[in-house]
């Protein structure tokens, strides 16, 4: 069981993974405060 969310930080890499793994992308725009 995954213990934490491991985020991609590159749009290009996320979309490349999405295509190869046939998944959607969860894009979280955040403010680090």
């Amino acid at each position, binding site marked *: 069981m*995954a213990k*934490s969310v491991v985020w*991609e*930080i590159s749009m290009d890499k996320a979309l490349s993974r999405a295509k190869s793994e046939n*998944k959607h992308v*969860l894009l979280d725009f955040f403010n680090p405060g």
Partner: protein
Amino acid sequence: MDAVTYPNEAVAEFVMTNLIPLRIQFDTQPHATDFHLKWTPTLITLDTDGVEHHRTVGFLAPEELIASLLLGMGKSCFELGRFEDAISFFNKIIDQRPKSHSTPEAVYLRGVATYKSTNDPKPLRLAYDKLKAEYADSEWTMRAQPYSLIG
């Protein structure tokens, strides 16, 4: 989100199993402009081509986030014409998370997706009946009201 929702084990498992999680700081260009970002947290479901299909703004508790993400994936499939896949996502919300804020929209869109995949209008009427019976105060019950005329 970082204090409550993302550390939740069910959320982490769901996200890592079903999605590619991508985090971008709110002022990163060109993405902030491309996605018309105005506030955080903004969560967007993208398809494999980077096209937006679902967006939420503001905090979501763990169970609400999972339901919202299922809705986003279902809407993506729906808008891409993959109606059977869309219905599968909507069923997971309706059957497993009947009390979530995403459920009325899932009921509505399941009815539409079923209609579009079968050309049978009865699922639209069934969606309205379920919305009226179980989610009477939802805006989706109002939006489905014309389907009450389907015999």
